[in-house]
């Protein structure tokens, strides 16, 4: 980032002659605004459309497909509709906290984008405490949710808010503990540092590094889903129980901001998981052209992160939700001990396992991962065969 700013000052144009201490914040703010309005908000909106389409195909239906080609503009229509709705604040609710809550939630999630590494040079601020910053700043979301639930002056919202606070605070622990193996391996908390410690090939990723990081990946992903209030942990906004949980009393754009945060958070989860476990933007150096390489890196990172968004949607369509006490049991009795074991195991692995054996384990685990994928597709084929489908019952295209 520093190089980019310096080259922009030297080139002339808008920033000619400015001292670095003035130009750097300006560029960062401009870039941040670009990222937020040009990337984050549209991604959150498009994710909502994609979720509805993915859900629908899983449920033998067609999702929204009327507004724009294949319904692609549905999220714009929903956003516009919500902006035009009447803004209802319940008379007995705490007006200031009620109005403030959605903004805190959205602020907490947008602030994480300051350290998401899109490519090797495109990152708003490569903090040397990158991952710790993200963990900290997503805590603002808890405050916002609790504020929303409590200030609504509605017992159901209160229940939803309190459940959510308990859930998010509890699941911070396995999430944080699962980051530790990675930090141990790389020795740095910075996002770019973690990516640079991995390679582009699957056997160089931390995902397949040793069995402990493999399990840490799953623990982290499940904990991140829980933090994002996604099924199977969507008790706070349980649609069948509390109507909409902590956001029952909200209407119009305030309501949509909560969901914007939920969908956008999916991308943040995907981005963090990609950074920590899947090698981030690493691509093989197939060309000398910097622009092409940057584009390839951006595409790789985006696709990997978006795969996890898709995975979260797929999981949400499949699984029922856990009850509050079961949620807590899973966190404290299963995930925290496993995360601690991962941490100790990774430390022990680093000390005891020689390089060559570690390399063999990496390659072995990559092959194992491939075997799991093959077994998965064989199960899919089994289910398709068992369902006695006629050839006309198959439809492969997502376009309908």
């Amino acid at each position: 980032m520093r190089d980019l700013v310096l080259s922009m000052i030297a080139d002339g144009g808008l920033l000619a002659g400015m001292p670095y201490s003035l130009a750097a914040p300006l560029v960062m703010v401009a870039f941040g605004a670009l990222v937020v309005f040009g990337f984050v908000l549209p991604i959150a909106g498009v994710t909502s459309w994609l979720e509805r389409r993915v859900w629908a195909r899983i449920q033998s239906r067609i999702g929204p497909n009327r507004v724009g080609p294949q319904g692609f503009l549905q999220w714009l229509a929903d956003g516009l509709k919500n902006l035009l709705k009447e803004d209802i604040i319940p008379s007995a609710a705490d007006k200031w906290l009620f109005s403030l809550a959605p903004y805190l939630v959205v602020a907490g999630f947008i602030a994480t984008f300051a350290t998401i590494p899109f490519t090797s040079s495109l990152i708003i601020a490569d903090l040397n405490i990158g991952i710790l910053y993200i963990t900290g700043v997503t805590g603002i979301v808890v405050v916002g949710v609790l504020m929303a639930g409590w200030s609504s002056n509605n017992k159901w919202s209160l229940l939803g808010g309190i459940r959510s606070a308990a859930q998010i605070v509890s699941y911070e622990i396995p999430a944080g503990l699962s980051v530790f193996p990675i930090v141990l391996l790389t020795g740095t908390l910075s996002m770019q540092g973690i990516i640079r410690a991995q390679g582009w090939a699957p056997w160089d990723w931390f995902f397949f590094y040793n069995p402990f990081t493999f399990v840490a990946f799953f623990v982290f992903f499940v904990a991140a889903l829980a933090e994002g209030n996604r099924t199977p942990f969507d008790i706070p906004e349980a649609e069948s129980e509390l109507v909409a949980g902590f956001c029952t009393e909200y209407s119009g754009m305030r309501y949509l901001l909560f969901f914007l945060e939920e969908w956008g958070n999916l991308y943040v989860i995907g981005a963090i998981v990609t950074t920590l476990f899947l090698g981030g933007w690493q691509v093989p150096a197939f060309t000398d052209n910097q622009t092409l390489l940057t584009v390839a890196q951006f595409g790789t990172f985006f696709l990997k992160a978006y795969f996890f968004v898709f995975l979260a949607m797929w999981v949400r369509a499949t699984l029922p939700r856990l009850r509050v006490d079961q949620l807590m049991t899973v966190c404290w009795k299963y995930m925290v001990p496993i995360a601690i074991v991962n941490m100790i195991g990774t430390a022990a692995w680093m000390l005891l396992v020689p390089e060559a054996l570690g390399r063999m384990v990496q390659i072995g685990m990559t092959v194992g991962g491939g075997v799991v994928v093959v077994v998965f597709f064989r199960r899919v084929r089994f289910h398709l065969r068992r369902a006695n489908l006629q050839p006309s019952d198959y439809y492969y295209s997502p376009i309908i």
Partner: protein
Amino acid sequence: MSLGGFDVQVLRENGFATEEMTLNMGPQHPSTHGVLRFVVRADGEIMTEAVPDVGYLHRSIEKISEKVGYHGFMPYTDRVDYVAAMPCNQGWAMVSEKLAGIEVPRRAEYCRVIASEFNRISSHLIAVGTMGMDIGAFTPFTHALREREHINNLLEELCGARLTFNYMRIGGVAWDLPPDFAEKALAYIDRFEPLIDEYNALISFNKIYKERLVNVAVISAADAINYNLNGPNLRGSGVDFDVRRDIPYSIYPELQFDVPIGTGEEGTVGDCFDRYMVRIREIQESCKLLRQCLQQIPDGPVLAKVPRKFKPPVGDAYVRVESARGDMGWYCVSDGSEYPYRVKIRTGSFTAMSIIEKVSRGLMIADLITVVASFDLVAPEVDR
């Protein structure tokens, strides 16, 4: 017990002053299976009591019968339980026939049983689908409803309507089976049976789902009998009673079928999972019954001669029918005129509401939804 009053109890435990919350799970709620209301007193998440409040869907159906007469009441019986309307039709037809001593032709009885069993499958599909949806799994609901649409298509060819069938008449049924109905129905059942296994693999044996259902709201056999539970609710508690087999009517004595009961396979006998699995197994049993009926159906008339001005002799009659929701009782008092003097319908959902108060003590609020879904309550049956 106070219904809706503000009754704040202050509990002092360990020096903490805690209050109970009174919550209203109101008539408008996404998952109370119709307009039902519960007044819940909860200490945090754990309920101390959940009192049901019924009557939001009362339509005086029983009183309407005194105005429209015996023939005219048949479409109203559809609305008593619109999810499983055929057994309701059958109940009313049977009680009128019992009053007047009319014998129904055999082919008509077979048509009635075919229609009732198809309706039982579609009603149980709704039951298991909404159970999944209330627990949070949205996909099994849509899959169950997709299969139900096929059954609706078949019944639409049979009688012209998809929900409120009005298929049966006093003395038989209104339409004979269309020419290609049997082969379409058999083709559908062949296609449908493996999908039940797929449904089970998707949700019934899912660990999270089992955790939500197992050992929740255990109802012992003695309690089930004392509180007058019926149908799958009763059989889920291990009591082996089915009106079709034990107090047989129509042509059920000629058919072979098993009666699934709850065995506590994953937890205790009588928990929500048992009631749920009884319904899944009943779908499979209904498929068996349908195959037998479609193969054994004799030829002949499907409607007996019944006068248009139907005047049964003075007297009363009580008939029990195994509806999808349990033992449905139809009681009719006739004073010799064209209009019944009094009709009383006794439904399985109404009695299931009475046990909710007992069973909900100590459960969490999320479990109340599970319990209501496992009883397969429908509001029109509760209130009529």
